């Protein structure tokens, strides 16, 4: 069976729904922007005249947009599964010969691609509002974003699996959103650098704020990012598959 047909179907569905519910999508973007502005005003208010625009505010913009991108990516799978269960379509996806894991991965990639438009819009908006100037070096940013997305996708699969088993876990999913702030903002100490997306987020800041490029990243950091991202992704997928198998044994796969 051709995989691209399944992926094209998922992407097309995402684009159709985004266009059809454009006002709703726009409302989401405005809400995210308002939240950023509240943080920004609070930050500048607290920092007063001592705040250095070139570092702290730049860091706030980059961290906020990185958090937004990773949050949208990680929650795609659990929230989609929750929605599909409520709508009664999950069982249809499970019956596809492609399997639920592959379809969830397609949905994740399609979601990331469409969400990227929101992320880019938000970056432009926040940069314009705060008057910051950031280094948008696509070549350097792309692998770092990929590592960060792989790690949080692992989290997405992990919590997607838990969603398949227990369904009513929205309140726990919200906690992860806040935990992501810590993961993105944390300093890459010898311990924290192994957390999902922490080291890639650090290097995204270095590229965008300090104007560094890929040659500045030490080999050890490359290996850490590669190894930890793959580890989180594969552990997440493994947990997802185990949970799916357990839900099949319990007969609760499509139940809400």
């Amino acid at each position, binding site marked *: *069976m*051709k995989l691209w*047909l*399944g992926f*094209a*179907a*998922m992407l*097309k*569905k995402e684009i*159709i*729904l985004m266009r*059809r*519910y454009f006002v709703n999508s726009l409302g989401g973007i405005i809400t995210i922007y308002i939240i950023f502005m509240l943080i920004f005003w609070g930050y500048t208010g607290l920092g007063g005249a001592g705040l250095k625009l070139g570092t702290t505010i730049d860091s706030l913009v980059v961290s906020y947009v990185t958090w937004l991108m990773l949050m949208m990516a990680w929650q795609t799978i659990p929230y989609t599964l929750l929605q599909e269960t409520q*709508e*009664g*379509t999950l*069982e*249809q*996806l*499970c*019956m*596809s*010969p*492609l*399997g639920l894991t592959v*379809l969830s991965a397609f949905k994740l990639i399609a979601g990331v691609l469409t969400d990227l438009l929101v992320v880019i819009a938000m970056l432009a908006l926040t940069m314009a509002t705060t008057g910051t100037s950031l280094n948008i070096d696509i070549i350097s940013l792309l692998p770092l974003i990929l590592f960060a997305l792989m790690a949080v996708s692992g989290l997405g699969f992990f919590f997607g699996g838990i969603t398949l088993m227990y369904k009513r876990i929205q309140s726990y999913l919200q906690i992860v959103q806040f935990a992501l702030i810590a993961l993105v903002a944390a300093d890459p100490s010898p311990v924290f650098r192994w957390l999902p997306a922490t080291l890639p987020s650090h290097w995204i800041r270095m590229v965008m704020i300090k104007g560094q490029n890929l040659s500045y990243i030490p080999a050890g950091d490359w290996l850490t990012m590669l190894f930890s991202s793959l580890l989180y992704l594969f552990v997440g997928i493994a947990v997802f598959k185990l949970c799916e*198998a357990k839900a*099949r*044994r*319990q*007969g609760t*796969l*499509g139940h809400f």
Partner: protein
Amino acid sequence: MDIVLKVNNLTKTYSGSEGKQVRALEEISFEVPRGIIFGLLGPNGAGKTTTIKSICGLVQPDAGSISVNGWDVQCQRAKALAQLTAVLEGNRNIYWRLTPRENLEFFAAIRGRKPRRLNREIPELLEVFGLTEKANQPVRKLSRGMQQKLALAVTLVTGAPILLLDEPTLGLDVKASYEIRSLLRRIVQEEQRTVIITTHDMNVVQDICQHVVIINEGRIVANDNIQHLLDLFQVRSYDLVVGQLTPGQRTGLEQIPHLRLEPVNSGWQISLDMENPTLLWQALDVLGSEQTPIESVSRKELNFEKVFMEILGGAKA
């Protein structure tokens, strides 16, 4: 006979609350031949849904096997699932925010159907199901009947030869139910696909099914051709309308097993199940003792609902 589905010794136990084990299926086995409408029947909680979901690979049985067109559902999952499609939640199995056309395109694509063929098939399907005019409206704006028809159309667009439909006419008005039944007959006759339905509507069963399996408390209590089941019960049941009975006659008749006595305008109606032919003679002896006139004798007109209840009653006894 070409068998498309084989269910062999399927057993499933669920863990209930407080660790209590609930046996949903107990070694059930049956086969479904190609090109018929097959009814999987039973009261609520009998095990129908567990059977259907096991066939679809949504529930993993504890023991037993299911093979679909020769592919084992557990071991050769993708190949087996490519052979079948299902509507398990009626009109909820489709995306309400998409249009009928978009739903058909999406579900065909995730089943590996190529777009080139679909360009011709989808308009045809929309036409057959009377959805052409609504093809570009979001599904949430369609009537329930139209949503059910679309769910059925989605199963067809996948190209799978076996369709499993859980309560396909539930909640539909008479016209929509009739249309769905006609469509199912057409699918089977013209395309040689196999349809397996579960329903509580015995009129639907009698109208369109050729063969039924009846499950009760996780076990098969009947597995037969529907006409054969109707004949079987029809020849054994008679209604006699007789004149007035004396109290002694009534007592005598009430002692005969499988006999029911009901007052009617002109006298009494005796309903007799002929499990044992001597019972009829006993009843006639009682009537003959007072030379009670027999107004009419008729073979009881059974519909499948009565057959179903008789079978379930027998299973419980």
